[in-house]
């Protein structure tokens, strides 16, 4: 605790004010305090040492991931959860790779020949993998048509660009280079919307704000480094208790990164009738640098940039641009920086496990993630498995930045295939940093609706203006508010999907969303055993028509909805038909199964 120096005499009191400035309007004390506490929580993890001599129970090592994960668990005496059974595995892998549960038939096929690696390869090669992982990137990049100069054609172009990258598994480094260097008309140039998206109110804000915003987006998304704080002030006297690396950074260093974008020229054209927004045309000049010149009547959101006169320096690796094309040099330096690969695999890991090896995945403190940097007193590593992270980074690079390769490596590991069930009474929160069980997470709105449609055999059919063809899954939607299927739109919003702009998906259940999922017509109709001219014919109604007996019906409903056999207790509950007719009873069973906790979760 340094900096208790400034003595002030005030109304008879002598107050000692810490020199550290805690009055940053963008970083309120409550959040600062929270961050400090989070760091202390990390410390508790580092100090944790259960019974180093105890023999930990871990599954066999299948690949490099297991080697490092199980080695640390063994060293610290932390038991692993048991491996998933086939039901748990097949449900999880379908959700993670395709965004929905397996159908009844897909489940049966796997149970008959439970070859996990084969299934993984099949799913990775399926079109549904593209749906799910394109959706993940689109949610991360938050590009939405209709706002911030993104027209509907531009939004569709971006969507198609991302889907094409995922479908072809194009090398991520070259995709990111394309995103950062796109030029031309935002309506036509497919990668450009990611940059244009950062340019808010370009005509009334200083262009330096746009450059800073682009820099922060790029640093956060591609390097895991948040730079927002140092876009207003030096790190010193602000971030001492939060982030050691950023504490040592100066605002001027942010300008040096931002300078790479200072030759971007943006021209607005307001002939876009599609969304009533001007579109932007982006080009690059060969002169110009990051300066402090600003129209005083439109000063923007950041403090004055007094003395700024910066040429670009990518100080993370110490590189300076050759030639005049600064923006493409930035793209080159970022994608050739090992941290780009490291941060990228860590993001993917965090998506599949619920938390990163470096956590949070978008909040790296480089002074605490690199084992070769000595930690000062009171600080501990942010990196739970440094050797593993480097091994994954090597793998990603040597596999030509293939996202699919990393996903495959992760999901084939026994670490990923651990169960979410941990022996009763044995779990401690600190075990989550060991990845000792698989963390159950609530399905996103899109996953829930697509799984409902899969379980009941009733796909929502949607058309989207600007796209040809019919969509059959909600994770194929290019962005919210796009489809013509309003009942599906309604329920997705009610269940908390994000808006691809500023509001991320909400994973917490809301009471209203749960009420809608219970009592909304669009959900109820899919669970009915009787077909209806207003509704698609459900799976259950087909099975009823086939004349299956009670037990077979219940078995099939369990298998198609929960991807597992009913227990004998469950079978008894579900076939105890009271005094109602068969249709009504089994409609109720199907409804109850899609409301169950384990249906709502990926576990």
């Amino acid at each position, binding site marked *: 605790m340094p900096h208790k120096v400034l003595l002030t005499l005030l109304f008879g009191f002598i107050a000692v004010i810490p020199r550290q400035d805690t*009055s940053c*309007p963008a970083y309120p004390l409550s*959040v600062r305090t929270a961050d400090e506490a989070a760091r202390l929580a990390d410390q508790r993890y580092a100090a944790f040492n259960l019974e180093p001599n105890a023999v930990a129970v871990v599954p066999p090592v299948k690949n490099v991931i297991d080697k490092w994960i199980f080695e640390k668990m063994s060293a610290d005496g932390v038991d692993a959860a048991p491996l998933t059974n086939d039901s748990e595995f097949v449900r999880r892998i379908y959700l993670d790779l395709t965004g929905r549960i397996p159908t009844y038939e897909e489940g049966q096929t796997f149970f008959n020949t439970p070859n996990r690696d084969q299934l993984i390869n099949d799913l990775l090669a399926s079109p549904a993998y593209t749906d799910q992982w394109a959706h993940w990137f689109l949610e991360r990049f938050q590009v939405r048509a209709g706002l911030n100069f993104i027209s509907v054609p531009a939004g569709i172009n971006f969507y198609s660009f991302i889907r094409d990258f995922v479908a072809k598994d194009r090398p991520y480094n070259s995709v990111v280079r394309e995103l950062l260097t796109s030029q031309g008309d935002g309506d036509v140039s497919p990668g450009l919307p990611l940059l244009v998206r950062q340019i808010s109110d370009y005509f009334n804000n200083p262009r330096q704000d746009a450059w800073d915003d682009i820099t922060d987006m790029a640093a956060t998304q591609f390097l895991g480094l948040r730079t927002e704080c140092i876009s207003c002030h030096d790190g010193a006297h602000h971030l001492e208790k939060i982030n050691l690396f950023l504490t040592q950074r100066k605002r001027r260093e942010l300008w040096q990164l931002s300078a790479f974008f200072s030759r971007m020229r943006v021209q607005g054209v307001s002939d876009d009738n599609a969304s009533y927004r001007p579109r932007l045309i982006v080009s690059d000049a060969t002169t110009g640098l990051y300066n402090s010149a600003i129209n005083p009547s439109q000063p923007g959101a950041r403090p004055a940039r007094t003395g700024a006169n910066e040429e670009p320096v990518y100080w993370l690796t110490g590189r300076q641009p050759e030639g005049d094309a600064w923006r493409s040099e930035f793209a080159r330096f970022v994608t050739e920086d090992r941290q780009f690969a490291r941060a990228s695999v860590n993001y993917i890991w965090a998506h599949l496990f619920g938390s990163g090896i470096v956590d949070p995945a978008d909040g790296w403190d480089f002074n605490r993630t690199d084992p070769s940097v000595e930690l000062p007193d009171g600080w501990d590593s942010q990196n739970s498995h440094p050797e593993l992270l480097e091994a994954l980074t090597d793998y990603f690079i040597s596999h030509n930045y293939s996202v699919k390769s990393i996903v495959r490596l992760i999901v084939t590991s026994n670490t990923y295939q651990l169960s979410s069930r941990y022996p009763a009474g044995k779990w401690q929160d600190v075990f989550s940093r060991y990845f000792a069980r698989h963390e159950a997470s609530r399905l996103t709105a899109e996953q829930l609706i697509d799984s409902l449609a899969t379980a009941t055999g009733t796909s929502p059919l949607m058309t989207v203006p600007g796209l040809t063809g019919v969509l059959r899954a909600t994770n194929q939607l290019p962005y919210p508010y796009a489809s013509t299927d309003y009942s599906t739109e309604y329920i997705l919003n009610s269940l908390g999907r994000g808006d691809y702009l*500023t509001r991320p998906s909400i994973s917490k259940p809301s009471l209203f969303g749960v*009420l809608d999922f219970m009592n909304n017509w669009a959900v109820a109709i899919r669970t009915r055993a009787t077909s209806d001219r207003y509704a698609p014919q459900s799976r259950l109604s087909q099975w009823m028509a086939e004349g299956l007996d009670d037990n077979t019906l219940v078995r099939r409903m369990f298998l198609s909805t929960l991807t597992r056999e009913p227990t004998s207790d469950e079978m008894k509950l579900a076939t105890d038909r009271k005094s109602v007719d068969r249709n009504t009873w089994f409609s109720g069973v199907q409804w*109850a199964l899609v409301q169950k*906790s384990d249906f709502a979760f990926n576990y």
Partner: protein
Amino acid sequence: LARRHQNCGNHGIPRRHFLFGTLGVAGAAILHGVPASAQSGSVVAKPRNSARSCIFINLAGAPSQLDTFDPKDGPWNPRDADIREHPGGIVLSRKFFPFLSDLTGDLCVLRSVSSWEAAHPRGQFYIQSGHSLNPAFAQIMPHIGAVVAYEKQNSGPLPPFFSFGGAGDEQRQGFLPGIATPFTFSPVPTGLNNLRHDFWGNQSQAFFDRSYSLLQSLDAPLRTQPLNNDMASYAAVLSQARQLVYNDAVVKVFQFSPQDDSRYGATVLGRSMVTARNLVQAKLGAAFVSITQSGWDLHSQQFNKQQSVNLYSLTNDLDRSLGNLIMDLKASGDLASTLIVVIGEFGRTPGPLNSRDGRDHFRPVMSALMIGGGVQGGRAIGVTDEISGAILEPGWRGDRAIYVQDITATIYSALGIDWTKSIDNALQGRRYIYIEGAAEGQYGPVEDVFA
């Protein structure tokens, strides 16, 4: 070394304003050279507990103080403004506020309020959360209604926090648990259709009861041994939902008569207000109702009735619905235990209109209203200059402008909540402070509003 920052100043109050609560520990801390910020809860808060619930009316877009609750004579007023002074120093336009003009005995007008912000998203974040906006952490910061919900928990089948009329981008529960999630929808006279499962004719309720009970039995093992905390909270929401379905008292809360609908204006705002009335009167657990009226950002043509949204339509919509709400709550005897707060995110440029016949963003002066819930009506707090562009007399014991933090503290106090509190280990070891600086006495309730 004052640091200049567009839109927002240094949000710390000068230390001479350590005026709230008893200063015992804080004073001692300062004398002993410990930074005051290291002391938690050093001010001893004595919440009033004068209100059971709060209706928080958010005038989004920022209303002009001069054209609403702090009018002054001047050439900018339209000829039909009909500005009149009422007992207690309240001044209102009878044209804009015909209902409220007859209810001034219930109104406490705060005219010495000042905002920290002059940009809509930041200002809105402030009044919704009581905190300065940090975009990086905006998602985890709860709405003040969520804090109230967290404090009050369930006291009936209804969730404690309701939110109506917003654009969908309002603050939500943030890091707080599921109980603090806002219950949000657009009210219509026929009520909510997700409180019934009417897909099976006259067997519908029997179908639902039977199927839900099957669900509960099937889910019992996971309720006893959830896979993690998230799954436990999902099960809790499932159970809470059950209490609302086919519950006649609950179904009725969300319905209202065509007469009430037209009396309140049959608008989104009116329907939100009438639902708020029902929620308060029903006493089924609703503690905080947030209602947003959008459209106040009148940069141009503000008195032009040809514009779909103008000062006449906004004030009259607000006046009619709020006036009827006050009258109905008074008639049912619930006004005394219901705190109604009306506030926007900042003020608007004072004096003459701008070149486009509107008003632009203005930080230094804004107005707010408080009604009921222990508030003494028939009074105005604070005096501004002849164009409502500067605070001449703060008019309260804080002896400075009233800030959002003070308004928030007032709400918490009225609802019986210690506004100096913080939540330790709220999320992965993180700590959340209800109101920055309140524990050190920088901010506190505007006690002067209370009877």
